[in-house]
Structure formats: structure tokens, C-alpha cells
């Protein structure tokens, strides 16, 4: 089974797991498996159109899937996938850069409510 490495900023959405086993023949399968296992990570790596966000990169081994066949890239047992988000650095920026996107949080909330009904 391919293993997906989760960077620290996204581990709060994978119950603290640094690596997640994902199944599938293609990257798209693996990501579906990831978001099925951990639904709250979804808006952090995908935009509303279902594409990987421009500040998140996914690598298979050493290679960016953008330089391969994107989410159609085939994967196999033992492949190591790495999610790489942009991080700004420092510590104070976190307090400073927080500007709200309440609509996003509310959308998420409504979706979660729907799925729990």
C-alpha cells in the first residue's frame, strides 16, 4: 500500500498521524481514500472545484505530480507520497495572518451537518 506523509500543519486533520496508508491505483484514488478516512482535511488540500490547491503540492517519491500525470499518475505498493504545503515561517505571523474566512467555516459546518443527518 502506498504511504502518504502528512506535514505537521495538516496533522491536526489526520488525528495526529504523520503517515497514512492509502489505497488505489492512481493518485486520485489515494486522495479519495485519504479524504474518506479523514474528511476534515479535504478543504485544506482541495478547492471547491476538486483541484489541489495552489499552495499544496503532492509528490510521488521525488517527483511533483504536476511534472507527471497529475492526479492520473499511477502509484504502486511501497510508493511514498508527500504532501507539501507552503508554510510562512516564524511564529508571530500566525496571529497576524489570521484573517477570517467565516463563510468557509460555515460551509464546512453545514456540510458536516448534512452528512450527519
Amino acid at each position, binding site marked *: 500500500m502506498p504511504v502518504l*506523509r502528512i*506535514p*505537521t*500543519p*495538516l*496533522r*491536526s*486533520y489526520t488525528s495526529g498521524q*504523520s503517515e497514512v496508508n492509502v489505497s488505489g491505483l492512481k493518485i486520485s484514488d489515494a486522495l479519495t481514500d485519504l479524504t474518506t478516512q479523514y474528511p476534515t482535511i479535504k*478543504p*485544506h488540500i482541495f478547492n471547491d472545484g476538486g483541484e489541489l*490547491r*495552489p*499552495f499544496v*503540492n503532492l*509528490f510521488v*517519491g*521525488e*517527483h*511533483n505530480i*504536476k*511534472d507527471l500525470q497529475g492526479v492520473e499518475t499511477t502509484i504502486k505498493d511501497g510508493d511514498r507520497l*508527500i504532501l*507539501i*504545503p*507552503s*508554510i*510562512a*515561517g*516564524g*511564529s*508571530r*505571523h*500566525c*496571529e*497576524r*495572518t*489570521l*484573517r*477570517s*474566512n*467565516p*463563510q*468557509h*467555516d*460555515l460551509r*464546512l*459546518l453545514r456540510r*458536516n451537518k448534512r452528512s450527519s443527518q
Partner: protein
Amino acid sequence: MLLELNRDEILRYSRHLLIPEVGLEGQRKLKNSSALIVGTGGLGSPVALYLAAAGIGRIGLVDYDVVDSSNLQRQVIHGTSTVGKLKVDSARDKLVDLNPDIQVDVYNEPFTSENALRIARDFDIILDGTDNFPTRYLTNDVAVFLGKPNVYASIYRFDGQASVFYAKEGPCYRCLFPEPPPPGLVPSCAEGGVLGVLPGTMGTIQATEALKVLLGIGEPLIGKLLLYNALDMTFDFVKLKKNPNCRVCGPNADIKELIDYEEFCGVPSHDHEEGSAGANWDITATELAERVKTNHLKLVDVREPHELEISRLPDATNIPLGQLAARLSELDSAEEMVIFCKSGGRSARGLELLVSAGFKKVKNLKGGINAWAKEVDTNLPVY
């Protein structure tokens, strides 16, 4: 013509001169080279110290901040005796003490689209030691436009990234990250924090890469990204390629000059008014202290649970910001409410969320519990 080393310098750099890859010629190259360090914080500290020690002839330091005691857990170029001083002055004093033979030029100003090209133009290499997205994109674009290498590192908690972005020979920062995260989607940023030694590790890697580039030795991290995790003690390397659609270094680049990076990133790069939700929504700590004497107010603390061990307000309800959207049903919109966090940034975001959900009687504690600790209850620690 390269400047020669004098007798004292030959002794000072003797351990470099013994390495064939550096040697006398390499050390002269370093003496004749210059490096601009953007930011004299966690990353900038080891970068500046090691580049000064290595004998880089001219070092530029850009920062507009003053040293605070909360910096000293990681910003090792500063010290207790320099708390309250300008960071660039504190750093310069340390560098000149470490190596009086070098020239240190300081720029006590924010690095902005107005001054960045002027400041960076006369340096051979740029080191990105910034702590926010707008200045990172600015630093990248400046390096691309001036054709200089940009030695990059970035940190978050236990994670570090490093690379050398040099558009002449490989990808730039925008090739990897065309756009910054939209405001509010910076993952887990609410908790903040960084292991103090992490910028030490990453800054030292930056200094190493800068020396390699200036000396022309080894294999710099051009076209490669280093990923470090301190908890797992793992180093991963991935390959980076030039993005043909890159807006600054691609063949059809449409960004030809510096832009408004705060607008591009949707966030301020420099301190404007911190911890405020806007005048109509703010309440100061002093005002709150008066109000609670006569009125019942619901206090909502949106910090993480481990922060409550540092300081807390009695009777406050703790709902970490990340859970607020899912736990709105625990709050009564008819009740008067004050929302707070450490210094007012996270709670401003929480307030916007509450207001979008129909809450009207809610205020943000400006400056957070730290403001309360300074203005009202001085027994509480500030952190």
C-alpha cells in the same frame, strides 16, 4: 581583482584555508562577496552569525522590529541585554564583535515593494529569513528580477523547508507555490508556535547553501527542496522543476515588476493594528473590566486547551477556534458575549464567524488575554 587576506585573517580563517574546496582563493571570494539577510529573527540569527563568522565581506540586515524577550527562545543573535533595542542594531553589534573585519549594513525598515530593489541590488545573494507570505513572495520576485539566488527556508512548529531558488538556473518560489494560502486557510495556524531550535537548524542550512553558492562548490539545493521534521528526525528531498506557467520566471511571465504583496496574499506583512476586529467590534481590557462589574457577559476563550495552563479568565468557556463553527449550538446568540484569545487575532476571526452566523451582541477583546494581563490583572503572565 579580489582583495587579499591580511595576516590576522589568515589565522582567523585557517580552518577554512585547510579545506581544499575553500582554500585561500575561496576565502578571498567570501571576503569579496556580499549577502542580504531579510529578517533578523529565528532564521536570520544563525544565518547572520555563520556568514559573519565565515568572513562574508559585507552583510546587509533588514528588519524593522525591536528585540522582545519572547524572541530569545530562538533568535540567538539577540540577548537579554538588547531587549528593547532595534533588532538590526542588536544583530550588528553581535556580528561586529564576532568578526570586526566585515562590513555590516543595516536597514531599519520593513522590506517593501518601494525599497526592496534598491536595498537588494548591490548584494550577491539574498537570504529569506522572513516570517510571512507577503514578504516571502516579495523576496522571491526581487531575486528573480535582479537575477540573484534566493536562499530560502521556512518553518512551522517541527517542520522546516529549504531550497535555493535561482531562476537563472532552476525554479523560483512561485514555481512551487504559485499562490499563497487564502487568509483563514493557513492550516492550524491558530495554534502557532515553533520549536526554538528549528530555525537554528534551518538557518544553518541556509548559511551552508549560501556559502556553497558563493564559493561555487558542491551541489546547492537548486531544483531541490529539503523537508525536515524535527520530531521524526527525517530529511526528505524532492525535485523541483521550473513551472512553464510561472508568472514571474516563466516564458510568458506577466508579472514584470513588484506588486502589492499584502493585497496578493490578503494579509498584512507588517504589524498594522494587531489583535483588532475593527473599532465597532472591539472592547479594551479596561472597558471589559468595568463592564463585568455591572453586567453579566459570556466570555468565550478560543485558545487551545494547553494555553489555558498559562493564563485564564475565570468563568470563561473554552472553545478552540478550530471547533467554533461546529460548536455554535453551545452559545446563545441572545446573550452578550466577549470573545478572546492570546492577543486578539484568532478571536477577531472567531468574531467574524459568529457574526456571519447571526450573532449580534458579540465583542472582541482587543489585544486578547495578554492585554488583560497588562492592563487589568498584572498577576497573570503575558506570553
